[in-house]
């Protein structure tokens, strides 16, 4: 008997043994099912606001919407799971045992980090050609700076390879890269000039005169210029046309910033207001009263949630842009901040005189807390330009002594998307990207406060369509309100039967008829209600009380 059990019979197959092992393994799996995904990450990828109610629609549409919503949930879970594949981690700087990070100087940081990062800190001493304004290209690989006395240069700051260096023989007020590192826009004393990255002047745009500030809207290919004459001009650089020249009616425009989330231009004025502009409208989209004196600097963070402003009243305020437009936090600065900038991860830098202060928040979504600065640095001259380098932990400062590149751990977004802005792109990749970007250039008319407005159901057109259908057919074949009727319009007749008096008489007749119907209906309802009351009164045959006279 024992033999038969132990020796495997020829007809019998081996699986029974395996099955036991398999079941053992299954029983031991401590994490059955798919891996859990943190809820906040899933929230980040959710695009449907389920609390919004849609206007009543047909059953087919509603079922399709339900299917789409279920798909969207699944997709956001998958996208949240794909976050596991992101390779890089953001930088950080922590003091030990109550050490204040603001007291750590750049030299200490340079000593403590690796060689490659240490090389990112450099100082260009250019005292001869005046205070400098600077701009990083969208990928963060190239830097362009322009000095007040006409010195313009563009270089790849990582490899320190100079692309061009020229003197434009005129005062340079602002400098910006256009969509890629191939083109530069320089706001010179008289007009706006466009240069190639080899220093060749391509265009001189005389319609934009006395420009003080430039902003480039990358997805619309629009260059916004604010001028001393009080005009905000939008120039489409792909076609070469001026899309809109708006008169801001607020005097000299000195303070300008763009909201990267919705491509709205924020202008700061000397009466303490910040106005929001879109090229589609002649009037500002909104005006926010920020300061008691003039506004000196405006900056908006990359998600479009917070706006930081500083004014002549030495206040630095952070406003909530998506919702209430109210100040979230305020701080009094000893010296007014003339320049503000946000980093990709929500760090705020303020340039006050020759000192820069950087404030950090708790995480990516929260506003920077203005209590304690995260880092500070003193430069060799007053600050004239500030920008965080995209995708790097570096802050570029243009001042009267030249250009400085500071290390700010935790400022840059660690994981870029190769198809949007890739600092390591080759020439071919750049060309492909440029063609695709030009093909999907967003028309300027679509700029508004909510960039997702195009995805909303157009309720106004729906209702207008309904009205037109009722007019044409007398009833709405796609509607669900059988009672809805178009107002009666008497048909015009010939031979004097269409005089005002007879029209009025005809209208009166129809109105009286409808009125009579309504009265009849309401009488019927009243009778029914009476009967119900009597039935109720009869059913409650309790003792009459003195309070019964108040029963309705």
């Amino acid at each position, binding site marked *: 008997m024992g033999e038969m059990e132990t020796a495997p019979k020829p007809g019998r197959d081996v699986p029974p043994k395996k099955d036991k092992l398999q079941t053992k393994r299954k029983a031991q799996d401590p994490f059955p099912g798919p891996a859990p995904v943190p809820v906040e990450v899933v929230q*980040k*990828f959710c*695009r449907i606001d389920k609390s919004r109610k849609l206007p009543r629609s047909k059953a087919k549409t509603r079922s399709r919407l339900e299917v789409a919503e279920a798909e969207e949930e699944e997709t956001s879970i998958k*996208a949240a799971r*794909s976050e596991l594949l*992101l*390779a*890089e*981690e*953001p*930088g*950080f*700087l*922590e003091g*030990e045992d109550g*050490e204040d*990070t603001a007291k*750590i100087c750049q030299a*200490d*940081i340079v000593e*403590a*980090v*690796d060689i*490659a*990062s240490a090389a990112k800190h450099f100082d260009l001493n250019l005292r001869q050609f005046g205070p400098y304004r600077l701009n990083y290209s969208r990928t963060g690989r190239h830097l362009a700076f322009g000095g007040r006395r006409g010195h313009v240069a563009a270089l790849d700051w990582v490899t320190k390879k100079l692309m061009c260096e020229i003197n434009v023989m005129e005062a340079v007020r602002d400098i910006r890269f256009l969509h890629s590192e191939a083109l530069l826009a320089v706001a010179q004393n008289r007009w706006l000039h466009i240069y190639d990255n080899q220093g060749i002047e391509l265009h001189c745009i005389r319609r934009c005169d006395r420009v003080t500030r430039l902003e480039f809207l990358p*997805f619309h290919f629009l260059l916004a210029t604010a001028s001393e004459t009080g005009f905000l001009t939008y120039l489409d650089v792909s076609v070469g046309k001026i899309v809109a020249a708006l008169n801001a009616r607020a005097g000299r425009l000195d303070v300008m910033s763009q909201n*990267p*989330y919705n*491509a709205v231009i924020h202008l700061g004025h000397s009466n303490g207001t910040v106005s929001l502009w879109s090229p589609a409208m002649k009037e500002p989209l909104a005006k926010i009263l920020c300061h008691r004196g003039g506004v000196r600097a405006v900056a908006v963070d*990359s*998600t479009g949630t917070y706006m930081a402003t500083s004014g002549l009243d030495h206040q630095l305020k952070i406003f909530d842009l998506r919702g209430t437009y109210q100040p979230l936090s305020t701080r009094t600065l000893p010296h007014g901040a003339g320049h503000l900038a946000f980093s990709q991860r929500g760090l705020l830098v303020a340039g006050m005189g020759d000192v820069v202060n950087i404030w950090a928040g708790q995480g990516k979504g929260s506003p920077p807390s203005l209590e304690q600065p995260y880092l500070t640095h003193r430069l060799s001259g007053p600050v004239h330009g500030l920008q965080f380098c995209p995708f*790097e*932990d570096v802050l570029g400062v243009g001042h009267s002594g030249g250009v400085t590149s500071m290390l700010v*751990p*935790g400022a840059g*977004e*660690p*994981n*870029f*998307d*190769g*198809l*949007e802005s*890739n600092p*390591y792109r*080759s020439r*071919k990749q750049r060309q492909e990207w440029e063609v695709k970007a030009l*093909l*999907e*250039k*967003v*028309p300027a008319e*679509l700029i508004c406060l909510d*960039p*997702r*407005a*195009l*995805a909303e159901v157009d309720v106004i057109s729906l209702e207008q369509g309904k009205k037109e259908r009722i007019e044409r*057919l*007398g009833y709405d074949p796609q509607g669900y309100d059988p009672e809805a009727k178009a107002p009666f319009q008497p048909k015009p007749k010939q031979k004097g039967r269409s005089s005002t008096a007879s029209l009025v008489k005809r209208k009166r007749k129809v109105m009286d008829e409808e009125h009579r119907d309504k009265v009849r209906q309401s009488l019927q309802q009243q009778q029914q209600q009476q009967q119900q009351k009597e039935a109720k009164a009869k059913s409650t045959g309790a003792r009459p009380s003195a309070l019964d006279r108040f029963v309705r």
Partner: protein
Amino acid sequence: MKVKMLSRNPDNYVRETKLDLQRVPRNYDPTLHPFEVPREYVRALNATKLERVFAKPFLASLDGHRDGVNCLAKHPKNLATILSGACDGEVRIWNLTQRNCIRTIQAHEGFVRGICTRFCGTSFFTVGDDKTVKQWKMDGPGYGEEEEPLHTILGKTVYTGIDHHWKEAVFATCGQQVDIWDEQRTNPICSMTWGFDSISSVKFNPVETFLLGSCASDRNIVLYDMRQATPLKKVILDMRTNTICWNPMEAFIFTAANEDYNLYTFDMRALDTPVMVHMDHVSAVLDVDYSPTGKEFVSASFDKSIRIFPVDKSRSREVYHTKRMQHVICVKWTSDSKYIMCGSDEMNIRLWKANASEKLGVLTSREKAAKDYNQKLKEKFQHYPHIKRIARHRHLPKSIYSQIQEQRIMKEARRRKEVNRIKHSKPGSVPIVSEKKKHIVAVVK
């Protein structure tokens, strides 16, 4: 002090050799991809415009018949073979890939009224004005042999249509009555009739293979059950139906091509209301055929155009016309759902693409991905006014265009009259009849 700077190793981001692919790291965070909706909208607009740019559906015209093409049939096993019968009694077999005629048979004296292939693909049947039903071999006659039918059946009356069973060796002809024949016998196994008028076409149901439908001259469509050898029910419409076609995917759905310029999709189980009324033609609809996917069908009309309709919509998604194509008598959708063939009055058979802007041939994986993406974009943004306007735009010949305007004015006038009648009479005295039910006169079981 604990410090770490973001530093990337270029080796992880730049390719090693020129022969490698470029590395493209992805981050799907929505903050890195602003303006999603406007950019997708612009992409959808571009996709719609490109679709119109690449919409070149006409492929080939098969020349050879000496009289108008009256009927077409598909080979059940071979995609490249089609058979056509002309009004002078000639039957031709064509090869679509080489676009030439491989065989010609003088089948009948007078019109070839109907042609159908056997389900195995070895033979086909034709009926003609000379009151005969002939069965022919699909392969040509051997060397030294004459072109002769395998089998000839002489009837007493003219047969106007023929269809073969999808699984058994049985076929049905129609003329004065519907006859079911066994291939081995010379007499029909049963004859069914309901009504006194001639029957113009008969079709077997591909899914429930014992069901047949037929269209008669007294404006009715009759459904028969072969097992019980009786008619099941009939629906009487306003005007005569020319042909019907069963949906190859849905067992009980069929579409009827009617003389009142419309097509009606019926569910056999509830014949009192059509599932959908398809209105877009401006003249009588002569033939209809379903796509093998069961989601669309093509209709041929006496106005010189063919239209492709989705099953669940009442408007056509596509219209094909040519200056040289006159009244289209018959149309077929090939079994790979990619091509449409139509035979017309002027002796030509034309081959069209079912999706006008489709690229034929093998697509690379990137092309497929781009095509799928564009398709989804167009579907997502199809209701936006600018995109709808571009997607819907078709060039129409002047005759059809002016007819559409005229008929729209007439329909509006009729509708206004009805609305006024309802408005000015006692509520409830004039019944509001939906558009679908208007065209059905009666259903008889």
